[in-house]
């Protein structure tokens, strides 16, 4: 059952990833990306990281897909484009991606990683993440807040109307 909980989202994630990069309609690519991000939430659930699955669904599948759809609606003529969607680096890109996957597969095959899942810290995992976020990693947390504020201001400034 644990294997099914991993392999079904994993296979669907790979298939929708291929749909993202191979689809000729940009809007279809975004929908494939939404499916891929939801399958990633499924993978997180199989890793017993429920909080991260919820964050993934809210921020990624909910937030990023929404803003990408808005950007497409603002910038695209959705019908009538006859340009090719891929440039001339198709073979080079495929070779590079395959080489990268090959390197990782080789490294994973050589490494003596275990097969057992150790016990996670006792108690509620969400509470543990929250506590360590505010005690051990509080500096990074505050810097992240500054970064997100800067990104928000920058995005609002960039997309302001022309006047």
């Amino acid at each position, binding site marked *: 059952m644990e294997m099914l909980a991993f392999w079904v989202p994993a296979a669907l994630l790979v298939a929708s990833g291929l749909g993202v990069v191979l689809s000729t309609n940009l809007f279809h690519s975004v929908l494939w990306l939404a499916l891929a991000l939801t399958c990633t939430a499924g993978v997180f659930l199989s890793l017993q990281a429920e909080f991260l699955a919820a964050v993934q669904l809210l*921020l*990624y599948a909910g937030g990023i897909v929404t803003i*990408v759809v808005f950007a497409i609606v603002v910038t695209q003529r959705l019908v009538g484009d006859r340009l090719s*969607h*891929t440039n001339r680096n198709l073979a080079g890109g495929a070779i590079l991606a395959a080489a990268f996957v090959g390197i990782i597969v080789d490294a994973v095959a050589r490494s003596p990683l275990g097969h057992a899942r150790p016990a996670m810290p006792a108690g509620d995992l969400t509470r543990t*993440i929250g506590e360590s976020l505010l005690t051990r990693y509080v500096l990074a947390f505050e810097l992240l807040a500054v970064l997100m504020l800067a990104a*928000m201001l920058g995005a609002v400034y960039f997309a302001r109307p022309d006047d």
Partner: protein
Amino acid sequence: MGVQPYLLLAAVVFGIGLFGVITRRNTIGILLGIELMLNAVNINLVAFSRFAGSETGMVFTVFAICITVSEAAMGLAIVILLFRIRRTVMADHLDLLRG
């Protein structure tokens, strides 16, 4: 089941995103490939966190997701601004910095 299937899945998804970034002409298509790559990294982080018995990787993943959201918002704001100026989002035509 071990951590290896998760690492292989993350590597495959990263490779697919890398292929998308290299071959797509549309700038928004390139950004979609970048999202796939960052997603694969998050899978890796959570898998290692689970199999190390610690929540550190999951905290790291929360940070990575927040930073990804900020980067996507900024990137799309730049794309929209470029579209206003040049009326195109094809990466071939965005050559203002070319010497």
